[in-house]
């Protein structure tokens, strides 16, 4: 695990921003932190980036405690906050050059590093352009390049897609996927779940200062979807017979029909699903379609966070 947070607490006055956060980030993963605004995502990221002091719990990042060995932690991670810090009067090249210097990149290597990063984020043609006149999407990509200047193993990206248009979001997603291929570990937060779908290999759902669920996306799905939604299509004149057969099975509930389509909840696994299908076939009911519908991230998220409502 490149990041381990165990029982981490952080209070702002009487507000508990982190209320015993437990988070494990595997090396090489793309960990998506999802949760509503104020859930504790940014607080967690600031603590692991050594920018915020925790009140309790244990944290290690790349084997170091951010509160004790902040220098080592900062060497290992690249942090991209949810805003773009602008220095007036600097070109894109100078901007990255400055941050390469303050991140301790050796002076003879800076030029190569900066040029290759501009190439990576697709801004080589904007090297001499003032950063202030770049579009928001370009600024985000430049910001991502900035967090990479010292070639860290871990990237912490706080709401990187916030405020971007669809094209810029797509470009950013492509870039993060590319970074993942380069064996970087990425921790990325978002409250736009569709942003994480497709790029995150792991998820942690954060709500009210706690991690409500975490693991690979499949693990979370499996843990949360003890009940799957199944859609079956049979001939119109066979719907009633099919429904009777399904209702007779104890793993089936919430059966509903609409123009030859039957939807129901399956309280079992893939084997139960296969046996149900076999029973319909044995009853000589033609089955045109049989599909188990997985819950999307949106659904998972709502399920998890609703579960915490008191």
């Amino acid at each position: 695990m490149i990041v381990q947070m165990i029982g981490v607490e952080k209070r702002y006055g009487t507000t508990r921003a982190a209320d015993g956060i437990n988070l494990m980030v595997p090396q090489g993963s793309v960990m998506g932190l999802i949760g509503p605004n104020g859930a504790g995502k940014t607080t967690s990221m600031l603590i692991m980036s050594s920018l915020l002091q925790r009140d309790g719990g244990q944290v290690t990042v790349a084997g170091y405690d951010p509160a004790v060995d902040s220098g080592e932690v900062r060497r290992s991670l690249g942090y991209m906050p949810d805003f773009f810090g602008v220095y007036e009067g600097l070109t894109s090249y100078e901007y990255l050059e400055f941050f390469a210097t303050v991140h301790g990149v050796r002076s003879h290597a800076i030029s190569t590093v900066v040029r290759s990063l501009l190439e990576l984020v697709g801004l080589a043609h904007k090297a001499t352009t003032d950063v202030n006149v770049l579009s928001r999407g370009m600024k985000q990509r430049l910001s991502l390049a900035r967090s990479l200047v010292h070639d860290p193993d871990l990237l912490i990206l706080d709401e990187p897609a916030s405020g971007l248009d669809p094209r810029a979001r797509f470009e950013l997603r492509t870039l993060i996927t590319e970074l993942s291929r380069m064996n970087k570990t990425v921790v990325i937060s978002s409250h736009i779940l569709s942003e994480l779908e497709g790029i995150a290999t792991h998820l942690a759902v954060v709500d009210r200062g706690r991690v409500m669920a975490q693991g690979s996306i499949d693990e979370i799905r499996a843990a949360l979807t003890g009940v799957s939604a199944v859609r079956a299509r049979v001939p119109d004149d066979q719907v009633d017979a099919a429904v009777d057969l399904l209702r007779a099975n104890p793993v089936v509930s919430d059966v509903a029909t609409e123009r030859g389509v039957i939807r129901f909840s399956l309280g079992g696994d893939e084997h139960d699903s296969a046996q149900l299908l076999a029973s319909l076939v044995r009853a000589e009911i033609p089955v045109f379609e049989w599909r188990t519908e997985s819950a999307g991230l949106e659904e998972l998220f709502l399920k998890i966070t609703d579960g915490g409502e008191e």
Partner: protein
Amino acid sequence: MIINPIARREIKTRFRTGRSAVTVSVWLLMVGAAGYLIFLLARSLASDRFRFSGGSSVLASTYMGSLMFELLAMLLLGAVLVVVPTVAALAIVGERERLTLELLQVSQLSARQVVLGKLGSSLAYLLLLVVAVAPVLTLPLLIGGVTLADILVAFAMIALTAVMVGSVSIWVSSAVKTSRGAVAASLLFVGIITFGTLLALGAELFAFQDDNGQFFPRTGREVVSIWANPFFGMVSAVEEPLSIRTNADTPFGLASELLLRRQAGDMSLVGIVTEEFVGGPVAEPGFNELGQANNAGVPLRRGPVWVRTLAIYTFVTLLALWRATRRIAVPLRRV
């Protein structure tokens, strides 16, 4: 040469703008005009003052050179007291407002390097302004009455003041949330050490006058309120030990009279150049051949003011830089 990366970036971006070129040009014009006006004023005063001197042009030019030097030094000190806090107060709060402070905090730079870089870039701007006016400031050297040592000592005290005010402004900048608030608080601090200490001086003299209304007893008395005043610190550095170059009716002369009283108390031991002594080049008791007070015989009852100023400013500088560093260092403590 290794230059702090923050200072290097700020110097580069600040000086490449058109605004800097305009500022330096306007500053040069202002100092040039002020220098010329001071020259005219000094020449006029010297002419009036030494009209009965039997054509002693040496005496007149000495007075004129002294007056020019003192007024230009005060002008430069005034510029420092306005420019440095205005620039330095934006150092940290500006990073916060631009949302770039976190980016520096998460870098390999230590908080101390950030603070020193900010101080360096703030002072670099001042250095440019000083270098730009160096030719004007050397004019009194050519006229006379001032030595190179006088000029260098005055510059050193101005530089010390700049570092101290800059450090305090950066501390303020790390503690205040808005740029406007930081500049206002920094200028307030400057107001306190300049005008505030003068008010305190008035109160001090008034409070400790004797029954006859004399501010100073014959044994002299310490004047605490001027220790932190940048003007008195500069005058003391140039004038103390009190030997020569004391002219009563120049800005430094007025201040050094107070320094004399603080040291000696018994004014009969010392001489202040007045009309009655400037009649000729013959040295009077207590004066050199140029008519300047020769106070070498004044016993030093206490250390010069500039030593106290130096100690106070050094302490305040170190305290301010330490506090500023603490404020921007993260994490603040161990778990």
